[in-house]
C-alpha cells in the first residue's frame, strides 16, 4: 500500500458540490483533500471533440469514460455500466471526471418552491424535508452568488435578495412564444448559472447554443470553476483516485478511505472529517461497497435507505410546427419555461410539473426526420428550411415521489477495476403518469396558441430521463428512515457527511443542482463555521466601494 495521505477534510468527488464544499472549508483554514475517480479534463480538448464530432446531438460524445472510472454511455450503444433491473429503465447520464457532470449541463439553477419541502403535511404524499425553505434561503443566495445566477423576478420561488444578475437576453423564439402565450401561460426566463454580464472573470453568454455538450467560453458556471476555486483556496485534488472502500474504526467513526490508482495500486487516505460527494449513484454505491462485519448492510445504512427512493424528473413532450418562423437554436439551449404548475392542491392527486421549451437547433432532428421519410433533393432543402424554422418542442418536468423500491444496488457484474457496477431498479408510478396525462391538455393549448400543426406527442408511456439523480441518500430527522440529518451528517457515523442531489428527500419539479449546492454550503458551515464578522465587513467594504 502506497504512502499515507492525510487531511482535516477528505472529500470524495470533485464535482460542483464536492468542490464548493472543499472551497468553503479550505477558506476557513482546513486542510482539504479531494479524491476524484476520473481524470482531469481539458476544456480545449472537449471543445475540439465537440467541434469535430459528426454527432452534434450526442452530448456525451466529448466525454469518453476512462477505463478505471467508467460512466454510463448509451450512444451508439449501452456500454453496460449502469445495469438496468427494471421494470422501467433509468438511463442516467453522468460524468466521472474532475469537474463532474456539470461540464455539460444546461446550467438551470432553480430554487424549489417552499411547499416542495412539505408535501406530506400539505398534500399527504411523499415526505417532508427536515428543514424549511426559509432555512435554506440564505444558502441558496450564497450558492447563487458563487455560481453567478441570472434570473427573473417572477419565478415563483421567494427570495430575500436580488439575483446576482438579470436574465440572459431572450432569444427571438422565446420572445415569440412568450408573446403568443401571454394571458394564458406566463413564459419566464429560466433561472440559470449563465452570465448575462461579465461575472467573476467569466464572459457573458454569446449564444453558442452548445451548453450541454460544452460551453466553449465559460459563460456558464461549471464544476471545473468550482474545482479551480477550491484549489485557489488551498484544497488539493487527486484525480484518477478510484475510492472503493470507506474504512471505520471500532467506534464507527470513519478512519480512512481506500482508493485504486489506474494501475490498481492501493492507497489509503486518513482524515478527521469525510465528505461523500460522488453523486446520487456513485455515493450510495460506495457506502454499500464499504460493508463490514459491524455494518453488514453498508455504511450509514442503519435505516436500509441507502440507495433507495431513487428519483429523477421524467418528461413527456410535444413537438409541432408553429405558424411562423421562430428558428430555435439561437441563444442558450434552455432559456424559458412555464412555472405556474409547480405547486397546487392538485399535488394530492397527481405530479406537479414545469413546462420547459427547448431552444436547441432543430436542423439535426428535422434532417433525420426527412431522411427517414425518404425526402430528397430540392424538396429536402425546402422542407429542411421550412421545418427547422418552425419546429417547437415543449416538455414537462414531472415530480416523482420517493418509493423505497426505486433504488440503486450493487450489480453482480464488475467493472474493469473489479468494483461492482451500480444497478438501477426503477418504475414510474401512477402519480407521475397522471401528471403526464394532465399536462397533455397544456401541450395542446400551447400548440393551439402557436398555430401549431403536425403535432407529435412522445410515445405513450415513454418518459425521457433528465439526469437529476435524487433521493438515494435522503436527509431526515428519523435515523430509522433516512440516511443523513438535516445538515448532511450520517446518522451512523459522526464524522461522515454526504453532499449532493442524493440527499434531497423529494425531487420536486426543479433541476436539482442549485439545491444540492445550497445544502452542501450549509453542511460546510455546520462542519466549520465561517468567520462571519470578517465576511460581513468585506461585503460592506465592497458595497461602499461600488457606491
Amino acid at each position: 500500500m502506497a504512502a499515507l495521505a492525510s487531511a482535516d477534510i477528505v472529500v470524495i468527488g470533485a464535482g460542483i458540490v464536492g468542490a464548493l464544499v472543499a472551497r468553503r472549508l479550505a477558506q476557513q483554514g482546513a486542510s482539504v483533500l479531494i479524491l476524484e475517480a476520473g481524470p482531469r479534463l481539458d476544456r480545449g480538448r472537449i471543445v475540439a471533440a465537440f467541434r469535430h464530432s459528426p454527432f452534434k446531438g450526442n452530448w456525451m460524445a466529448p466525454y469518453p469514460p476512462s477505463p478505471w472510472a467508467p460512466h454510463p454511455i448509451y450512444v451508439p450503444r449501452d456500454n453496460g455500466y449502469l445495469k438496468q433491473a427494471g421494470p422501467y429503465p433509468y438511463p442516467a447520464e453522468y460524468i466521472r471526471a474532475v469537474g463532474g457532470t456539470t461540464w455539460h449541463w444546461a446550467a438551470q439553477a432553480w430554487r424549489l418552491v417552499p411547499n416542495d419541502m412539505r408535501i406530506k403535511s400539505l398534500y399527504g404524499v411523499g415526505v417532508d424535508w427536515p428543514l424549511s425553505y426559509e432555512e435554506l434561503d440564505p444558502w441558496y443566495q450564497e450558492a447563487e452568488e458563487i455560481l453567478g445566477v441570472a434570473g427573473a423576478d417572477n419565478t415563483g420561488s421567494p427570495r430575500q435578495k436580488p439575483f446576482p444578475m438579470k436574465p440572459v437576453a431572450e432569444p427571438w423564439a422565446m420572445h415569440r412564444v412568450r408573446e403568443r402565450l401571454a394571458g394564458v401561460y406566463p413564459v419566464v426566463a429560466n433561472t440559470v448559472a449563465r452570465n448575462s454580464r461579465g461575472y467573476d472573470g467569466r464572459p457573458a453568454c454569446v449564444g453558442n447554443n452548445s451548453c450541454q455538450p460544452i460551453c466553449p467560453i465559460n459563460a456558464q458556471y461549471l464544476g471545473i470553476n468550482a474545482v479551480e476555486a477550491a484549489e485557489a483556496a488551498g484544497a488539493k485534488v487527486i484525480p484518477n483516485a478510484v475510492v472503493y472502500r470507506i474504512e471505520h474504526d471500532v467506534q464507527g467513526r470513519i478512519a480512512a478511505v481506500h482508493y485504486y490508482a489506474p494501475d490498481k495500486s492501493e492507497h489509503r487516505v486518513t482524515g478527521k472529517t469525510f465528505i461523500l460527494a460522488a453523486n446520487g449513484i456513485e455515493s450510495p454505491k460506495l457506502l454499500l461497497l464499504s460493508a463490514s462485519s459491524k455494518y453488514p448492510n453498508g455504511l450509514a445504512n442503519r435505516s436500509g435507505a441507502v440507495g433507495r427512493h431513487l428519483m429523477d424528473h421524467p418528461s413527456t413532450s410535444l413537438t409541432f410546427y408553429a405558424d411562423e418562423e421562430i428558428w430555435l437554436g439561437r441563444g442558450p439551449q434552455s432559456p424559458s419555461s412555464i412555472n405556474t404548475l409547480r405547486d397546487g392542491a392538485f399535488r394530492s392527486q397527481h405530479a406537479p410539473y414545469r413546462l420547459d421549451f427547448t431552444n436547441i437547433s432543430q436542423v439535426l432532428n428535422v434532417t433525420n426526420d426527412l431522411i427517414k421519410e425518404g425526402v430528397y433533393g430540392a424538396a429536402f432543402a425546402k422542407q429542411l428550411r421550412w421545418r427547422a424554422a418552425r419546429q417547437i418542442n415543449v416538455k414537462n418536468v414531472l415530480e416523482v415521489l420517493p418509493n423505497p423500491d426505486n433504488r440503486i444496488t450493487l450489480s453482480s457484474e464488475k467493472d474493469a477495476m473489479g468494483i461492482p457496477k451500480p444497478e438501477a431498479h426503477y418504475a414510474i408510478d401512477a402519480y407521475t403518469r397522471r401528471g403526464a396525462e394532465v399536462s397533455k391538455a397544456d401541450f395542446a393549448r400551447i400548440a393551439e396558441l402557436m398555430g401549431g400543426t403536425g403535432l407529435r406527442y412522445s410515445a405513450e408511456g415513454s418518459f425521457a430521463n433528465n439526469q437529476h439523480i435524487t433521493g438515494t441518500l435522503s436527509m431526515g430527522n428519523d435515523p430509522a428512515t433516512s440516511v443523513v440529518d438535516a445538515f448532511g451528517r450520517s446518522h451512523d457515523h459522526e464524522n461522515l457527511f454526504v453532499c449532493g442531489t442524493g440527499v434531497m428527500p423529494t425531487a420536486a419539479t426543479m433541476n436539482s443542482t442549485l439545491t444540492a449546492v445550497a445544502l452542501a454550503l450549509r453542511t460546510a458551515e455546520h462542519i466549520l463555521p465561517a468567520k462571519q464578522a470578517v465576511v460581513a465587513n468585506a461585503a460592506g467594504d465592497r458595497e461602499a466601494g461600488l457606491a
Partner: protein
Amino acid sequence: MNAPLRYLVLLGLLVAVLAQAADNPDATLLRRGQYLATASDCVACHTSPGGKPYAGGLSIATPVGNIVSTNITPSKTAGIGHYTEAQFSDALRHGIRADGKHLYPAMPYTAYAQLTDADVQAMYAYFMHDVAPVDTAPAPTRLAFPFNVRLLMASWNWLFLDDQPFKPDPGKSAEWNRGAFLVRGPAHCSTCHTPRNLLMAEQSSRELAGGAVGTWFAPNITSDATSGIGNWGTQQLVDYLKSGHASGKGQAAGPMAEAVDNSLRHLTDADLQAIAAYLKTVPPRHDPADTRAVDRWGGPSAEPDVARTALPGDADTMSGAQVYDAYCASCHQARGEGSFDGGLPPLFHNTATGRTHTDNLVMVILDGIRWHTDDSGVHMPGFAHELSDRQIATLGNWLLQHYGNPAATVSVKQVRTLRTGGAAPHLVLLARLAMAAIVLLLIFAATWLMRRRKRHAAKTF
C-alpha cells in the same frame, strides 16, 4: 427656550446655512471638474483593485521600482482634504506635493500642466465636494537609492517640464485646438504612446510614435498611414474611443481598454471628434519594419485537416491550427472571420495580428480583455490558466502566419517573460538608470552652485 437664546440659535442656523452656501460651488463648476477628472482618468491609478474610488493604493510598476498611488479623496487625514487650491494646482501641474516634496512623473503632471487655471479650479471643487473622503492612507512608495531622493525630480522638471498651460493655436480650428488640448493635456495620451528617453522623459520630437506600458505596448498613433492611424477614418477613431472597438481596425485591450472604460467612453461625441481630428494631424512617424498598414494583413483561411487529425497526448505538441480550433474558433470562427458583424472580431485586418511588435498579441491571449465599470465585463476571456507558454507561442505564430503579419513572431521565452510580469529590470537597465540619477544629481548640484554664485555676486554689488 427664552427669546434671546432663540435668536442666538436662529442666528447660528443662518450663519451655518450661509456658510454652506458660500462653501457650495455651483453645479456647473462641479460638473466641469468631474468631466475633467474623468477625461484625466485619475481614477485609473488612484484606485486599487476592488478599492474605493480615488483612495489610492494601486502599485504601479515602473523601471525604477513600484510606485504606489496616493489617496486623493478629500480626507483631511489621509487624502488631500487639507490642500489649498494652489497646492492642488502645484501637485497637478508641477508635480509638487503640499509638503513641498516632488512627485515622480508616474503622475502625468507633465501632461496635466496643460490644464488652465479655470480647469484646475473646477477639478479642485469637484475633488473637495463631490468625492467621498476615505480616511485610510495606502502604504507609501519606497524606492531604492538613488531613486528615493525625490529632490532629483527638481532637476528632471527643470529639464523636461513645460509648465505653461495650453495655448490655442490661432491658425487652427477650434475643434483641432480642443483635440490638441485633450490629447496633450487631460487625456495624457503621450504618457503611454510617446517613447521615452534614457531619463524616462517623453521624446517630444517623436510625439505618439509608440511606447511601452508595463507588459503592453502603446502603439504608434501618429498620422502615418502604415504604422499609425493615418488610414483610420475619423468615425473609426471615434468608435474606437467610445466602444473600444473599430470594425476592420482593432480593439482596445490592456491599459487602453481601461482608458476607454474609465475615461474616454464618457467624453462627449464632440470631444471624441476633436481628439480624432487632432490625431489625424500629428506628424507621421513611420517604422520601416511596417511594410503594409498594420490593419491590412491576412485574410480568411482554415486548415481543413484539423478535424481529421487526432490531438496529441502532450498538449505542448498541438499544432497552431489545433490550439486555434480548440480555444479560439468558437468565437473567432473556423476561418478567423469572427462573427456578429465584427462584434467578435475577425483576426485578419486586425491590428492585433498586424504588428511586428507582438507583445500585445501575447498579452491579450494571456489576459483577455476586461472592462471593469460597465456590465459587459469580460470582452474576451484570458487563457493564462489554460494554455502553456509553448501553446501560446505556437498559436501566436500560427495566427501571424495565417491572419496577420507573417514577418512577426512570438517566442516561448517572450510568453514566459510576459506571463511573469514582463522583463525584470536587469542590471544593465538598473546601471543605466543609476547613471541617469547621478547625471540628474550633478545637474542639480550645478544649478544650485550657479544660483548660489549669482546670489553671492548680487551681494557683492
